[in-house]
């Protein structure tokens, strides 16, 4: 749930009641059914545009805010090589945020409007970044498992129908393959290290397990669906399917290190479906609505950056230049 495609009931209703030009809608849907991409200048249904902006914008905010918990540890990385890798990763995340803002901009919402909505709390970002990175082992777990989850989500979304979003995601997935590898490397070093290193890794896994289960959003039976979003290839896989794919890929890579998950019910059934205990979806909702351990800090840091940097941006403005929506 990097960029959420879960609809509120009101949105789900609107999806089914907004009237579009039937001929144009048919051409649009035919194009998507043929596997062709939609480009910025194309006609598109109002709700397609709206849902894409929301999803890409949330994804962009997640990259920007996601840099904060990891950035905390740059000054305290255990050695020079790890520090270089972490600086590079954090720089990538901010760059990914910019790429995604650009993709959303082609749909007609400016980067500044998106930033305003983030700072004013109108627009969400991934819940997972509202939890603190308490020790160096958290950096290992974020690099391996949070990025692993993000890559599952992004690889699936890169097969979507909107050209600029797909292009941004392909570049992002390519760059994030290094994040995943360095995260795994970091996890393996801790797991095969001293007693203390193993202990902080186990502690980090214990704390990140629940936010990771939350990552892909509420179970399918709890979330409002829109067949249209699937048909329009805005949403390509259900929350449960993505979560299952993630567990399938990453749980064995932790267990093989003799590290455990804090859930006695976590297991794979004979039909390939992973089972787990109820991860407290009320907590998920509380954190989304602002009541997580770090929501306030994350927004305050961004609001500080906005205020402290404003004079620079104003000095850079050239009033004779008129902003135009970028091409691609």
């Amino acid at each position, binding site marked *: 749930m990097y960029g959420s495609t879960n609809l509120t009931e009101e949105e789900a209703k609107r999806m089914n009641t907004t009237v579009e030009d039937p001929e144009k809608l048919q051409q649009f849907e035919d194009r998507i059914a043929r596997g062709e991409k939609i*480009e*910025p*200048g*194309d*006609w598109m249904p109002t709700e397609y545009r709206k849902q894409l902006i929301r999803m890409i914008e949330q994804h962009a905010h997640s990259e920007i805010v996601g840099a*904060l918990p990891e*950035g*905390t540890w740059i*000054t305290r990385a255990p050695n020079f090589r790890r520090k270089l890798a972490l600086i*590079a990763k954090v*720089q*990538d995340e901010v*760059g990914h945020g*910019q*790429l995604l803002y*650009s993709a959303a*901009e082609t749909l007609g919402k*400016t*980067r*500044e*409007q998106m*930033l*305003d909505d983030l*700072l*004013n709390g109108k627009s969400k970002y991934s819940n997972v970044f509202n939890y*603190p*990175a*308490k020790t160096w082992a958290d950096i290992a777990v974020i690099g391996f498992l949070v990025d692993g989850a993000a890559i599952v989500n992004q690889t699936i979304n890169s097969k979507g129908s909107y050209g600029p979003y797909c*292009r*941004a995601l392909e570049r992002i997935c*390519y*760059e994030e393959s290094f994040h995943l590898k360095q995260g795994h490397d970091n996890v393996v070093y801790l797991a095969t290290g001293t007693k203390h290193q193993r202990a902080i890794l186990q502690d980090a896994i214990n704390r990140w397990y629940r936010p990771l289960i939350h990552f892909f959003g509420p179970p399918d039976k709890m979330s409002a669906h829109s067949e249209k979003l699937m048909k329009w290839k805005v949403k390509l896989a259900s929350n449960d399917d993505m979560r299952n794919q993630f567990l399938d890929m990453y749980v064995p890579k932790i267990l093989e290190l003799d590290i455990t998950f804090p859930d006695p019910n976590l297991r794979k059934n004979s039909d390939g479906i992973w089972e787990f205990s109820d991860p407290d979806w009320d907590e998920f909702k509380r954190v989304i609505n602002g009541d997580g351990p770090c929501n*306030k*800090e994350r927004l*305050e*840091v961004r*609001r*500080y950056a*906005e*205020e*402290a940097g*404003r004079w620079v*941006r*104003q000095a*850079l*403005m*050239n009033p004779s*230049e*008129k*902003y*135009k929506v*970028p*091409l*691609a």
Partner: protein
Amino acid sequence: MSSLDPRVNRLDKKKISEGEVHTNTHLITWEVFHQEKRGKQPVHVGIVHASTPEMALVLAKEQYARRGKTTNLWVAKTTDVYTFATEDEDIFETTPEKTFREPAAYKVRDRIEKFQNQNKVEI
């Protein structure tokens, strides 16, 4: 605010804006072209926001030249790039059969051999 990040704890709290924020500084966008190697075509890779070409180039370097090899980057104002309208895509669909533009469509060996056989040409 007590953060795990000492830098956050050092922030000047007076500079944390309160109430509604309006960023309202729309820098223009520049289309970025990336040339991987000498001799290769520069390829469009995306945009940056900047007020001058110099700033656009610096930001393009940070955004599009972090990995692999780069020989050069070009930037051009979005407003200076002209395109066809997307819905006019059909103007590129002229005659469907265009083999007359392809070298493989021109095969003369059979004709030469036939001519040589008929006319007993020996070389």
